[in-house]
């Protein structure tokens, strides 16, 4: 495969990091948000400028420093990394618009800190996407963990403190206790940590060693939320909604899933996993998470908590797809990163808009809200269609590929899991939408007059909802990238 050396990946990572001094020093909030937009657009432009080369099958590499023998801090842009980077940097722009509406609408404190750490978190996300080896990935993974902590704990009250603790305990704890030793053992066994399609192992290692390493790496990247390392995510919902939307539906959690996928495809390699029959273990772990998380979501009354459990389930779809080890499954898993991102961010935007406009957080208090906020609730409907996997939304494609993947891999139990999970998804989303629009006047909790959230909140959710539908008609870019990544 052809490779080009270019500094672009480094710039894409650094641009939002370098803008933070501007954010801190801006006296005027409008100037500050202006800088965020500048960084966000430059980031997207840099990422997008690499797309043509990637689509032609080349890879872009850049080595920052050879820090350890055989392991460098190094970037490599391939199709899979590009897919993820494209999704995150696009949605950052939308989320910034939304953040302005949300944070100003609620007169939140410490907005400068908020925008700064958001920018740092995005740097780390792109860094993960473009990492060429496990060490670089780990570096940005940890950077993301620490950059998101002040965002999760934004409210600085007792609840934020205990949630912040849980967040650190699970995410940082697991990465230090599981990923770091596993990474060191891999390095000690093979002398390299570079991702490659064949994997880094020679295949002579014992089956038990491989299984332990695999479990340490897959579970250690706790951002992927595979049970039992999932409960930080519902706790993290204390954060302001834009944080939940971009970070806990797209960037942070997908960084987890992305890291797991890199471990499966780049560290172990599909062939080795198939030969050792290790994919099945991960499949069952993920399948258990899919079903359990969906069942828990059914019982949640807090809208953001329900979305969080839904996210836990959907993340495991991504892992499940790749762990099937069949070509269609891998494509399905990878595209699900993009498809789920657009759908779920829309849902979170809606939850936040409802909170800004009415102060309501619980589903039981949202009966009849469709008449008050029709645009928001239509967007919510579209978002939930995508998460369930129904046309005309992008989510349909990834589910389609996932289902085909199970057939290709001859994994009938997984097919059953996927289909029953879809039913469960419908069961926890449709009642919300139904109750929002169809209720008797006595039941309705809102007056019959249209009053949406501030325009800065509404526009982003319309954009992402439109995006979700657009992905149904034009999914080719993401599908192409996923196919190239195979």
């Amino acid at each position: 495969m052809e490779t080009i050396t270019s500094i672009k990946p480094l710039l894409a990572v650094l641009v939002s990091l370098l803008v933070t001094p501007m954010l801190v020093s801006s006296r005027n909030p409008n100037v500050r948000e202006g800088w965020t937009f500048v960084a966000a657009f430059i980031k997207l432009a840099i990422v997008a400028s690499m797309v043509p080369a990637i689509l032609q099958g080349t890879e872009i590499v850049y080595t920052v420093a050879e820090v350890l023998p055989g392991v460098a801090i190094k970037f490599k842009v391939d199709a899979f990394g590009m897919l993820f980077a494209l999704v995150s940097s696009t949605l950052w722009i939308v989320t910034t618009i939304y953040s302005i509406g949300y944070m100003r609408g609620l007169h939140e404190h410490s907005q400068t800190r908020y925008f700064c750490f958001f920018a740092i978190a995005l740097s780390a996300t792109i860094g993960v996407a473009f990492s060429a080896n496990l060490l670089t990935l780990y570096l940005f993974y940890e950077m993301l963990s620490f950059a998101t902590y002040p965002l999760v704990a934004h409210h600085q009250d007792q609840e934020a403190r205990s949630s912040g603790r849980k967040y650190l305990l699970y995410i940082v704890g697991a990465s230090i206790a599981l990923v770091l030793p596993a990474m060191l053992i891999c390095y000690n066994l093979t002398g390299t940590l570079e991702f490659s399609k064949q994997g880094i192992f020679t295949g002579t290692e014992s089956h038990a060693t491989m299984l332990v390493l695999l479990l340490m790496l897959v579970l250690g990247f706790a951002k992927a939320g595979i049970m039992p390392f999932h409960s930080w995510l519902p706790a993290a919902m204390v954060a302001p909604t834009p944080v939940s939307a971009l970070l806990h539906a797209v960037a942070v959690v997908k960084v987890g899933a992305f890291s797991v996928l890199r471990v499966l495809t780049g560290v172990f390699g599909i062939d080795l996993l198939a030969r050792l029959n290790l994919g099945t273990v991960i499949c069952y772990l993920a399948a258990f998470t899919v079903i359990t998380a969906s069942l828990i979501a059914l019982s949640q009354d807090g809208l953001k908590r329900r979305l969080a459990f839904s996210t836990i389930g959907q993340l495991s779809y991504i892992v499940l797809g790749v762990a099937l080890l069949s070509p269609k499954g891998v494509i399905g898993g990878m595209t699900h990163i993009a498809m789920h991102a657009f759908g779920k961010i829309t849902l979170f935007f809606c939850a936040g808009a409802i909170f800004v406009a009415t102060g309501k957080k619980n589903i039981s208090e949202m009966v009849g809200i469709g008449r008050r906020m029709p645009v928001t609730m239509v967007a919510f409907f579209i978002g939930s269609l995508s998460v369930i996997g129904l046309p005309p939304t992008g989510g349909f494609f990834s589910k389609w590929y996932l289902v085909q993947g199970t057939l290709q891999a001859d994994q009938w139990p997984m097919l059953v899991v996927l289909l029953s999970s879809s039913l469960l998804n419908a069961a926890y989303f449709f009642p919300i939408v139904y109750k929002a629009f169809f209720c008797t006047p006595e039941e309705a909790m809102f007056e019959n007059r249209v009053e949406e959230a501030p325009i800065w909140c509404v526009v982003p959710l319309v954009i992402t909802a439109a995006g979700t539908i657009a992905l149904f008609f034009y999914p080719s870019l993401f599908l192409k990238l996923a196919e190239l990544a195979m």
Partner: protein
Amino acid sequence: MSQQYPALLVIVPLLSAFAISIAGWVNKRLCFPIIVTALSVVVYASIGLLLTVLEKGVVIYHLGGWPPPVGIAYYVDHLNGLVLVVVASVALLNVIAAKKSIEQEFPDKAGPFYTLYILMVTGLLGIVVTGDAFNLYVLLEIAALTGYGLLAMGEERAPLSSLNYLYMGTIGACFYLLGVGYLYIVTGSLNMVDIARLLPPLYQSRAVLAAFIICMVGVWLKMAFFPLHSWLPNAYTHATSAASSLIAPLVTKVMVYVMIRLILTIFTPEFAFATLALNNIVVWLAVIAIVMGAILALAERNLKKMLTFIVVAEIGYMVGGAWLGNRAGMTGAILHIVNDALMTLCVFLVVGNIVYKVKGYAFENLQGLFRKMPFTMGAFVVGAMSIIGVPPTCGFFSKWYLIVGALQAGHYGFMAALIFSSLVSVVLFFRIFEICYYEPFSDHHGHDQPPEPMDEAPLTMVVPLLIVAVILILVGLYTGDIVNHIIKFAIPEGLV
């Protein structure tokens, strides 16, 4: 000029100590410029010396022109070349940062303080640069005696803690001297290279064995290797900020250097690792040091004292790494001398800034600090990340080498201890960050509350601190170069 670098390293600070003590009587304001100039010359000379070593190899300097074994030789190779740069730079950065707090804490005694300070630096540089085992003892005592003085200048309880340190430190130094005496008896030489040349036929001798073990115990006492650490936490906690941020980063690290020098040069790895076969026991002692250091740190409700227990745990890292008996472990130990000196400096400077502004370092003094002192706290976060071992800060990379060394030696206990210590460090530091970040608790999510005004330490304290924080990251990113161009040559090729 450049041939005189090794002598400059000791003579410049020694002579300027006199100048400073005189200036202290004449005009107190002269002390600071003199000490900064002297230390700048030292930094320049140490960097020049390291570059010379990199270019031409080992530098041997005969003091006063007397050839060894009669005269004292200064012997600079890649190992102490690197440590010299660290000692000199830490001393310089710290003195600049400490100026304001010295003026605040004892305005009348600035002259004596600076005099002791630079004498201590002289002693430390001398220990590192010398190639003579007895001369090392003399300089060890210079560094120790000035250290007792510096530490005693602190709070009410400082003289007592310092006295305790004096007892323990003197015992340690005596052990070392006794060991050197044994060596002199069997070899008739005090020059390290000379001793190393004469020793191999005597490896089976009981006297050599006794010399080695007695020296080691002495050095362990001086570096506060658990369970010989009891003098350290109180001595460092009760001292003034300016003294503790010099002594905490340097003294223990210099003693680790002496230990590695004993192992690598005087006794050679073949003797220390192959003949003695003590590795396993010492590494297990290191495991206990790490675990106990971490647990004792957890028990503290006082920032500075907590940090001193972290120092105790870090000593375990370096002793364990050096005693793993393989190249990766030794690389990690040497790298960690550099990294730990820098990150300890970073966190102790932070304490200095906090004490300067808040007048206390107990946990309840730390409320709301992220708002009040954002730059200090920013540097604190970087220092904490380095101690936890988060890339790309330098602490991660030395930990990496140490763990690789543990894996290669098959010593999983040491690996587990390092991981455990990382996890505990997360708890330790985030417990503090939580206090600085959340408390005092605001109501109603803190909406519409006027932010508390910033109250940052003076620029001369913040800038050196930020420089250290940046260095922590740069050293991390350049780990590859440091290892490939310096540390690789500091370890004998025999050690694999």
